[in-house]
């Protein structure tokens, strides 16, 4: 009995401070200083949401750059990785399908990030090499000069973490939006 009442009072005070107060404070901060990020980094075009800058979406046609494979089927409500072991035969079979889709050959191997599924299945980026690998396909499908497409990729590519992570990556949705603008 000596412990029940203090425990209940402790419940109340911690709920008020750590849940109500803390959540309210962070919510007010985020909605005031970073409303775009706080609401999911949603990209709008002509008043319609076309996706989130941070969430991969499926691109299947040859006119667009393709994102990394997704074990989640690009479902924004069901993020997941493949959870397959790197030694798994199932993973080898899945990779063979992806390789065939890109038409890769021993003389023209596809960059690994285009074959390996990401952790959450919603990785919005591909590597710079992965984008350049697709440049010719996109240029042909759109009747564009491949040099212009490559220039566009170079403009969009950035190192995610300065000297700590210098390998440049490209946001697929932003690249594809820029591609559409190129044709206008």
């Amino acid at each position, binding site marked *: 009995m000596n412990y029940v009442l203090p*425990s209940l009072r402790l419940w109340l005070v911690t709920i008020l401070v*750590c*849940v109500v107060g803390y959540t309210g404070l962070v919510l007010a901060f*985020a909605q005031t200083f970073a409303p775009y990020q706080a609401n*999911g980094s949603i990209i709008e075009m002509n008043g319609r949401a076309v996706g989130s800058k941070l969430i991969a979406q499926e691109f299947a046609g040859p006119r667009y750059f393709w994102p990394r494979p997704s074990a989640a089927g690009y479902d*924004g409500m*069901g993020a997941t990785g493949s959870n397959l072991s790197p*030694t798994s035969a199932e993973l080898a079979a899945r990779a063979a399908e992806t390789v065939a889709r890109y038409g890769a050959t021993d003389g023209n191997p596809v960059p690994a990030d285009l074959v390996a599924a990401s*952790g959450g299945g919603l990785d919005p980026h591909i590597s710079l090499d992965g984008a350049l690998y697709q440049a010719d396909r996109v240029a042909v499908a759109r009747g564009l000069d491949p040099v212009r497409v490559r220039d566009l990729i170079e403009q969009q590519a950035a190192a995610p973490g300065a000297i700590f992570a210098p390998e440049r990556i490209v946001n697929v949705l932003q690249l594809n939006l820029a591609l559409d603008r190129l044709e206008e």
Partner: protein
Amino acid sequence: MLSAILTIILIVGGTALLAWPLGRYMAGLFSGRFARTDGLFARMVGGAPEQDWKQYSLALIAFNIVMFGFVFTLLATQHMLPLNPDGQRAATLDLVFNTAASFTTNTNLQHYSGESTWSYLAQIGGLMWLQFVSAATGIAALAALARGIGGKPTMGNFFVDLQRASFFVLLPLAIIIAAVIALNGVPMTLQGAAQATTLEGVAQTIARGPAAAFVAIKQLGTNGGGFFGPNSTHPLENPTFWSNAFEMVAIILIPMACVWMFGRIIGRPKHAIVVFGVMAALLLIKITASVGFETAPTQAFLNLPVAQDVGNLEGKELRLGATTGPLWAVLTTSTSNGSVGAMHDSLNPLTGLVPMAGMWLNETFGGVGVGMINMFLYIVVAVFVAGMMVGRTPEYLGHRIEGREMRLAVLALISHPVLILGGTALFAATAWGAGTLNNIGAHGFSEILYEFSSAAANNGSGFEGLGDNTVPWNIATGLVMLIGRYLSIIVPLAIVGSLMAKRRSAESAGTLSVESSTFGVMLLITILIFGALTFFPAAALGPVAEHLTFMR
């Protein structure tokens, strides 16, 4: 290679620098430096009498029962309550039991995906609340243990300690981390999922919610339970390289500071340096192994025309860089955090062994508060063995370690492998485990072994391919988490209670110094022999067998 080394120095070195002043501050806080707020905290709970080890433990258990009861009720009734914009339905009671046990015990094992299971109220009002108070429970227990072993007549008052830890340690740090990751792109909204139409004209629903507040305390309190299913691999939970850096620092900051806090409260900062050194040595060994093993390319792609030049990319996110997946895997399992920055199921076999080893040892900084408590058990054993070797009465800080204390210490230490190996044996031999695997052969065995290691160590990460939302898994891991948590808090407090009842002797020239590097080596050997001998056979059956079979 260079960027990998720089990243490790940035994260581990940077955190170590921050942990020193934080530990100093925490020692002051728990030594009564802020008398006015301590008085306020005492009034909040209707008075704060000094407690001995039994009273302190009873208070801790009483409040933890309230924690479990409240969140169990909230999770079970979420579909009838407000703040449920995505219309989450009632969850099964076995999942509710597992989740309530998981977050009450600071484990955060998740047999569900947050965005498709829990309402915002359940996540914020229930799970996030537990992420504060379960972490504070561990810090409070360490403060009590340090007071007792350091020569104070009582252990303090649990209800005051819990408020000190919640409001003056966790809360201010959580506000800072939440603000930083919110600016980096972690959502913080009460609106339901966003609806979009993709450039190719397909409908896409994008989960969001009050994630920034949740993720900050998840990282700081060695909780690890993600707002979204795939934890910090989800781009909205970890949007940039820099959010990732802050989240990794948050994993080990308080566990590191706890060592300094312990050293200051017992008045032996040099002893804390030795303990910190042992922990740091183990951490660096594991980081080197993990990052090194993960540079091997994905085995499944080797016979295909795939250009692999940055190691195994399956289950990893490009924006986080090549090194951070295996680095995070070590940090999160050295501490009992359990969040992930890459999918552990898809790590190379030997890389996957490193997080398992972290959970088996469970004291490389360890969980907030409880990591140092686990290390205390190893110290007791090391002191005892050293005393036997030189033929002197084993003493720790002037306390004579005798049969009763040793029996308790061994009980707590041996319960860990019994829970892990016993559970793994049962589930590997029956359809309870064998019917839920995502991978076959040795890797499937690793999935079961990992799950029980994670539950017993109160870690919470997983080889997530395992189909673990079943009644047997929910009940078994729920029980293992509860036993693993409370045994390893109450038994050490009982040991200290027993030591406090005895006369403390003055340390002489013949006493084993716990401030020397000799003692550090002794402690390291004790930990390695204990861990290696107990778990080596299981490791051989899982990750080692997989490596030898497939990796050429």
